[in-house]
């Protein structure tokens, strides 16, 4: 177990390193700089800005140019080597800042650090995501069980058709319609905003709906398959009560596919929350994320991507661990 955890932690670091590198590459490959939308920026000011935000690897460029001139390369090649030197310095600078836990400054929101922005918005998004996560798991598993136990009855059919409907309806369809009916016609819940538990109900439900459906379908087919297996017949034959057969024997095995879906679920909830936050005007990280892309706010974008990926990778690790706790036959390796 400890060896497994150790290996997975190393893999986690490797994945995060990969994510950071990929993020950096994509930011740098994008044409234009965060300041290119500013009108007629004097070269001197642009240079100062680039230096302030660490977007320029000047000393790397100089070093590379110096070396290649000494080697007697022609001008064209020296210039290119300078670019590579600058690029490499930017990369190592960014990585070393990340290692120090510094996500740098936002290039658009003046004098606000990425960390500050994330510290304000991420808890909001996490609350929303976590609530939806719990709703999706609990509701999905229970609906799936009910449907499986009432197999081939109207309960099963209705549940499965509703599930397919929920999968086919995106949040930006269900969201506005629910707002129209529940908030505007019946005045039951606030239309949007954040702060009280009442603000959380509708967004969390809308965010969770497709995943409730997905988990219910998964749970149903898995439980149906498990209930047909020999060890369930044995348990029933030796006189174990029906609830006990279900909970202690069948569920323990049948829930495994659902558990393995929880990792991707975390990833999906993160992306889904971007939409839900915009529909319900929730001050979460989603809006900043979309804006950081549109504004070329490089470090905010990098920060959000790295934090999102870290959360998802940790989630996957937890899923793998809970897998073994549920089923001792599964060996932890890799």
């Amino acid at each position: 177990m400890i060896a497994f955890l150790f290996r997975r932690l190393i893999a986690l670091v490797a994945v995060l390193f990969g994510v950071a590198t990929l993020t950096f590459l994509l930011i740098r490959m994008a044409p234009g700089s965060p300041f290119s939308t500013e009108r007629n920026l004097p070269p001197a000011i642009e240079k100062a800005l680039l230096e302030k935000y660490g977007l320029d690897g000047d000393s790397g460029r100089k070093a590379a140019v110096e070396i290649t001139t000494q080697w007697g390369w022609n001008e064209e090649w020296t210039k290119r080597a300078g670019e590579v030197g600058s690029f490499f310095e930017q990369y190592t600078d960014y990585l070393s800042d990340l290692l120090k836990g510094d996500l740098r400054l936002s290039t658009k929101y003046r004098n606000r650090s990425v960390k500050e922005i994330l510290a304000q918005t991420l808890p909001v998004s996490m609350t929303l995501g976590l609530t939806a996560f719990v709703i999706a798991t609990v509701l999905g598993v229970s609906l799936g069980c009910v449907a499986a136990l009432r197999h081939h009855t109207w309960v099963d059919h209705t549940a499965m058709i509703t599930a397919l409907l929920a999968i086919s309806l995106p949040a930006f369809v269900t969201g506005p319609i629910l707002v129209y009916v529940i908030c505007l016609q019946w005045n039951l819940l606030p239309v949007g905003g954040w702060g009280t538990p009442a603000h959380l109900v509708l967004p969390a439900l809308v965010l969770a709906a497709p995943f409730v459906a997905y988990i219910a379908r998964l749970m149903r087919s898995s439980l149906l398959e498990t209930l047909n297996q020999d060890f369930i017949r044995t348990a029933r034959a030796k006189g174990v009560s029906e609830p006990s057969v279900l909970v202690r024997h069948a569920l323990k095995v049948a829930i495994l596919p659902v558990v393995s879906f929880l990792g991707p679920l975390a990833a999906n909830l993160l992306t889904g929350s971007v939409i839900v936050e915009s529909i319900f005007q929730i001050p979460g990280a989603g809006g900043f994320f979309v804006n950081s892309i549109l504004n070329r706010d490089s470090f905010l974008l990098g920060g959000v991507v790295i934090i999102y990926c870290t959360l998802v990778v940790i989630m996957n690790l937890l899923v793998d661990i809970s897998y073994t706790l549920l089923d001792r036959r599964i060996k932890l390796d890799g």
Partner: protein
Amino acid sequence: MAEAVATIPVGSGISPSQRALRHLASNPATVIAFCILVVMALSAIIIPAVTPKEWASTSSAVLEAPSATHWFGTDVLGRDLFRRVFVGARVSLLVGLAGAVVSLFIGTAYGLISGYFGGKIDAAMMRFVDLFYAIPRLILVLFFINTFDDTFRNAVASFAAWSDIDGLVPYSRILLLVISLGLIEWLTMARVVRGQVLAIKSQQYVTAAAALGQSHTKIILRHLLPNVAGVVVVYLTLTIPAVILDESFLSFLGLGVEASQASWGTLLKDGAQSINPIQNQWWLVVFPAIAMSLTLLALNFLGDGLRDALDVRGKR
């Protein structure tokens, strides 16, 4: 021996694909779903072509509720929504289909190679898929589209200049959407194809082909590919709604198709903005939502029906 032959029941003369078709036709949900899709596709082709041209342009009849002239009402710029919903259907269905086809090529090739070669190659390739499953993929797409938008536009513009095709440039975003959505939706396809290949590659005809000295490429293309075709068709039907959803997600955020064009995502975005305490233009949400949900529902039903009919999961 003769007796053994005689005992084979008469009904077994039909081929597996015929049996699947019969099974499919006997399921009313699948048949209805298929009809809905045909009607939707035909409407998307015909309706924008036959409705009056001036419905597409802006007019003073702004935000009118559904009436006898404008069946679905008009939008904030006075354009007829009935026409716009089906113009949007063109883009959404096209992106869905083309994106799914891109993902089909990637996923099938990936799954075939991974399953056929097995061992360490397989393990490494599947770890990569697992990794991708864990990353919030739409975030990557957002990132990707924004990064390559300008580059791609320039490439399309220079291609248009070179090939003398007018009006290509406005479609560069749609093309980029198709490619990038195809690039992220191939994972499930790859997994399923690989599973199928693992099951059939140990069968005798594959061993025989290898023993006869056929090359890897030939074995994969002539013997494995035809036998995974069923699965591929099933997951193609299930990938189309996923891509349509992705596209509408991006359009909703303003990163999908451009404002001058319409897709269900952009229509729903406009609709969502119109629902607030001050004004209630419900038709702006309801009609695009019905069109989109009906299509997605039909595709999902059809995919599920196909999966049951071909018994894709059961056979493994």
